[in-house]
């Protein structure tokens, strides 16, 4: 078959697809009237089109049956047991909770052991010191071993001094708190003592006031003769 004219295959395809405007369509139609090679090309494309359409019709012929098969497959009971979105989260949450409970049983807090805590803090501080020493050693590869030992000692001493200072601050705080408590207890005892004293005074006054009427009653008896004497 002769080849179509240069640049024409594209226009012929567009002509076939209906993609040209009126002017373009007429131009191609005019060319086709005078060019057998381009007419043959158009005819070949039309043949392909017809075959494609026939293939499409062949597929479309069984479409209803296919749709029914798909609907059956979609509604098949086996397809229904999918996990709902919240379902999988519920399962995950249950697993996490179970793990948490299991971990909690083995790691539940015990009463604080001050000595043990102190030992742990010391171990942690020493580990930190070691780590810093190792880091310093790595960074100071060009320094002598003596310098590095000095540096390590300084770092350790620095950390120890820091820890001692912190402990001293803590002890001061505790002492201050104790002093304050003692002062409060003393104040309270003083207050109690004062109120006791007040109570005693009041009781004494009451006793006196009880004793006084008897005296007063006895006085007129003693004074009566005096007044009568007057």
């Amino acid at each position, binding site marked *: 078959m002769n080849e179509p004219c240069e640049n024409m295959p594209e226009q012929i395809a567009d002509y076939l697809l209906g*993609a040209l405007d009126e002017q373009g369509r007429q131009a191609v139609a005019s060319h086709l009237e005078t060019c057998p090679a381009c007419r043959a090309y158009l005819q070949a*494309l039309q043949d*392909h089109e017809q075959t*494609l*359409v026939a*293939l499409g019709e062949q597929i479309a012929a069984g479409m209803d049956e296919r*749709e029914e098969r798909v609907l059956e497959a979609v509604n098949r009971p086996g397809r229904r047991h*999918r996990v709902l979105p919240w379902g999988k989260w519920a399962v995950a949450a249950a697993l996490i909770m179970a793990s948490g409970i299991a971990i909690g049983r083995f790691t539940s807090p015990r009463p604080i052991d001050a000595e043990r805590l102190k030992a742990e803090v010391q171990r942690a501080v020493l580990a930190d010191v070691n780590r810093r020493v190792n880091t310093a050693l790595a960074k100071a590869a060009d320094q002598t071993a003596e310098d590095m030992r000095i540096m390590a000692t300084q770092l350790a001493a620095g950390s120890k001094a820091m820890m001692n200072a912190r402990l001293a601050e803590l002890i001061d705080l505790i002492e201050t708190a104790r002093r304050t408590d003692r002062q409060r207890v003393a104040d309270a005892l003083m207050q109690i003592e004062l109120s006791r004293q007040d109570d005693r005074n009041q009781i004494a006054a009451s006793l006196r006031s009880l004793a006084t009427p008897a005296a007063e009653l006895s006085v007129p008896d003693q004074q009566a003769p005096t007044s009568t004497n007057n």
Partner: protein
Amino acid sequence: MEQQCDSELVMAVCRGERAAYAPLVRRHYKHVLLVCVAVLGNVHDAEDVAQEAMIKGLEKIRQLKERDQFGPWVVKIARNLSINLLRRKAIVERGAERATSAPSAENESREDVQAAVARLPLDLRLPLVMYYFDGRSVKTVAEKLNVSTSGVYSKLRAALRELHTILTGPGEEP
């Protein structure tokens, strides 16, 4: 009965009304199948993958954010599943083998064209199949593939020319 739009049906399915999925299948299965045919190059595999795509569409429908976009979404699922199958089974090579094998006399033209379609690059094959297998509407193809109509015309033009080259090229000589 008044026809419900896609977004209403999608919402109904999300609420648990499974029956609402049937109209979505009837509305979109054809394009799903055509995309599968276009990618895989044969109807048999395409039917299996299209069915799988519709089932996946139901299973994952809650993940669909734009509910009025069910069609393009399920078509995309179908396309991805088809490409995955194509990779697994290396259907491209088998399609090429089919193209060079001798077809029976009565179906020669149709099988030749089908084999040639299978040999087209995917970006040309997809619009070509959707256009000729589904009413020759450029607008529909553009909507389904989410491209412009001029883009579809461009692909169709190139696909027709490439198809012709494959069918008349030296590889097809007896």
